[in-house]
């Protein structure tokens, strides 16, 4: 059964290529079957492979062929299956299949139906390569592949130039991180002589001591890549704009899978990070600050998708926090539960947008509870899991992260307190969303109801969001991958506070947005309140800052350099050619006599030359 491993990425690849070469000539029904079915087949195969893996319990390594051979450097196209890979593959194919199924109805009326599924399948293929790769080079191939697919899908509705700009922004900003990551790979290869992950970890452990400069440098460079892909500070600005793509794309790429690739990368190279405590601390701090920044920003947005985008940034911040404090298992656990409930929230938001004539502003919605019951329950469950209300999946994973953060010596309680503040904000903004959209006065009537292909994935994701955290089931395969966390439990008071905080957040949201007993208008309308709101609304003015810091100086430089000498040379070649063309075209008079005369003179000249007269 384990031999079936290469089939898992192969199915989406075949489907994607088929959809591409038929350039939209295929009937929509067939496109839907091919697009969603291929990922479904992958999911089934993953299940079979996973069962076989759980039986044997041994990591499975499968070399397909040697990619290239340059001296001592010979990376293979090879897959490595262990618990971490299995968990990631299950999320990608499982949640991916549900989102594909949802898309078959969501995109029904789009003219580029087949192009959409070609990109989406290609994305699933690239993402699977990313998580299954046994060496960092193949991982990098998948890493860039998902970047390209993300670019294509963010700019899917390319007729609107704003979407194209958003796609370009996503591509360029992540490229900054990818460059850092490439440098990290170069450093690792020159120092350790291999990019195969397992031998590399062994070599690092034998060559380097804990706290050496080189592992810290390498890990910081890898962190740069992770920060770009996972939209963490300071490279997070692309994710809110990436919401320009179709909503299921946001669910799959910008919530459930691609943006968690950074988390996967750090978890995959955790043995390197264990050698570099300063890099670990950097990971934790980046995560914590990002999660607070994004949560406060989400509090004041009014585009339903932007709220969810900032929420995603914030939740990935939690995962980074977990990785930074060495709670590897908790980080991946949160990745899995987040994939469930955030995919659910995005799909539900997509359903709302779909049924309300593409309306994004939450203050124009309201009272949808009775009109879109399926969507309401999905959203409620998703928000509960996001806010980490007790017994939902998000509760277990977030609780695990916070408790393990508390355990860390010196900084632990501070990180814990910061995480709690983030949890409070999360609860407030997620229930603000629920109360504003689904309760209160009805302002818009939905013109259609979600069909079965939307309702089924929503219900399944509801179930996963609710029970996905019980028994910490997703963690079982991870036990063999990561070092075991200490079993020491903090006091009941600490645990009690972690449970109480989301409930307090829920209560605050209730009193402000539903019952109106807590009036914050005065606070918001005061001068400092306005300023803070504006500051938060702009996402801590990051876009403004980058515009001043990078974009404008770059454009200015380009403007100044318009007339530089390299261009002058090339432009003058063009000028000369144009002049020659104008001159020669005058000789083309169309007059027969003129042609005959010039031929005569030509012949006379040639004859004179031959006879030696001239």
């Amino acid at each position, binding site marked *: 059964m384990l031999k079936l491993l290469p089939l898992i990425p192969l199915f989406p690849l075949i489907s994607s290529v088929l959809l591409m070469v038929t350039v939209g000539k295929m009937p929509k029904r067939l496109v839907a079957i091919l697009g969603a079915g291929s990922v479904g087949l992958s999911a089934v195969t993953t299940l079979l492979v996973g069962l076989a893996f759980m039986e044997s319990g041994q990591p499975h390594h499968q070399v397909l062929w040697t990619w290239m051979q340059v001296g001592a450097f010979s990376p293979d196209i090879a897959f490595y299956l262990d618990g971490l890979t299995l968990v990631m593959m299950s999320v990608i194919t499982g949640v991916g299949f549900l989102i594909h199924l949802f898309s078959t109805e969501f995109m029904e009326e789009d003219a580029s139906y087949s192009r959409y599924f070609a990109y989406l399948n290609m994305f699933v293929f690239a993402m699977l390569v990313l998580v299954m790769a046994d060496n960092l080079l193949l991982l990098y191939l998948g890493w860039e592949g998902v970047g390209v697919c993300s670019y294509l899908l963010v700019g899917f509705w390319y007729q609107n130039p704003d979407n194209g700009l958003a796609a370009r922004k996503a591509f360029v900003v992540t490229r900054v991180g990818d460059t850092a990551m490439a440098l990290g790979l170069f450093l690792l290869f020159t120092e350790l002589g291999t990019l195969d992950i397992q031998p590399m970890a062994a070599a690092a452990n034998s060559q380097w001591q804990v706290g050496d400069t080189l592992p810290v440098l390498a890990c910081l460079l890898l962190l740069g890549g992770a920060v770009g892909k996972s939209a963490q500070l300071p490279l997070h600005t692309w994710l809110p704009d990436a919401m320009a793509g179709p909503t299921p794309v946001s669910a799959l790429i910008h919530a459930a899978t691609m943006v968690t690739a950074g988390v996967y990368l750090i978890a995959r190279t955790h043995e390197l990070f264990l050698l570099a405590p300063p890099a670990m601390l950097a990971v934790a701090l980046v995560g914590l600050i990002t999660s607070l920044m994004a949560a406060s920003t989400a509090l004041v947005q009014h585009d339903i998708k932007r709220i969810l985008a900032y929420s995603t940034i914030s939740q990935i911040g939690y995962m980074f926090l977990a990785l930074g404090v060495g709670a590897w298992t908790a980080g991946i656990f949160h990745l899995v539960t987040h994939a469930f409930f955030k995919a659910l929230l995005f799909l539900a938001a997509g359903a709302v947008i779909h049924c309300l004539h593409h309306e994004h502003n939450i203050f124009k919605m309201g009272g949808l509870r009775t009109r879109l019951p399926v969507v309401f329950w999905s959203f409620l469950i998703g928000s509960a899991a996001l806010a980490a209300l007790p017994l939902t999946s998000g509760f277990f994973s977030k609780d695990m992260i916070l408790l393990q953060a508390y355990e860390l010596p010196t900084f632990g309680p501070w990180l814990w307190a910061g995480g709690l503040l983030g949890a409070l904000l999360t609860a407030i903004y997620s229930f603000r969303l629920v109360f504003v959209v689904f309760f209160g006065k009805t302002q818009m009537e939905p013109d259609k109801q979600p069909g079965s292909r939307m309702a089924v994935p929503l219900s399944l994701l509801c179930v996963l969001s609710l029970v996905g955290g019980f028994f910490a089931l997703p963690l079982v395969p991870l036990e063999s991958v990561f070092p075991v966390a200490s079993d020491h439990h903090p006091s009941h008071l600490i645990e009690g506070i972690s449970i109480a905080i989301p409930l307090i957040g829920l209560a605050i949201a209730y009193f402000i947005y539903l019952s109106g007993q807590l009036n914050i208008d005065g606070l918001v309308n005061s001068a400092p309140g306005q300023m803070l709101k504006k500051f938060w609304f702009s996402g801590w003015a990051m876009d403004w800052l980058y515009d001043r810091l990078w974009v404008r100086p770059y454009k200015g430089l380009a403007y100044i350099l318009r007339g530089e000498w390299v261009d002058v040379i090339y432009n003058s070649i063009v000028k000369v050619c144009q002049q020659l063309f104008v001159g020669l075209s005058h000789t083309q008079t169309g007059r027969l*006599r003129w042609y005959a005369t010039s031929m005569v003179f030509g012949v006379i000249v040639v004859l004179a030359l031959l006879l030696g007269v001239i």
Partner: protein
Amino acid sequence: MDGVSIPLDHVLLLASLLFICGLLGLMMRRNVIFILISLEVMLNASAVAFVAAGARWGQADGQVIFMLILAVAAAEVAVGLGLVIQIQRRFKSLDMDDADRLRG
């Protein structure tokens, strides 16, 4: 051969004069029919030169080439007159300077 034979130089001089007449006509006349006639004159000038050269060296080649030139001239006239008719129909004129639609 009996009698007085014309020296080759004279015949070549005549052929050159005829050829230059034809060439000047080709370059100067605007009427397409006169252009065709000029072409004929040029062809015949070269034919005269061939015949004279054949007679001078006592070989039949010159006359063979003369026959060939006759055939070429006939073919040229056939095609040329067809083109003349087309030009007349299209431009309502025989002035070749009117047919300059291929100018750059």
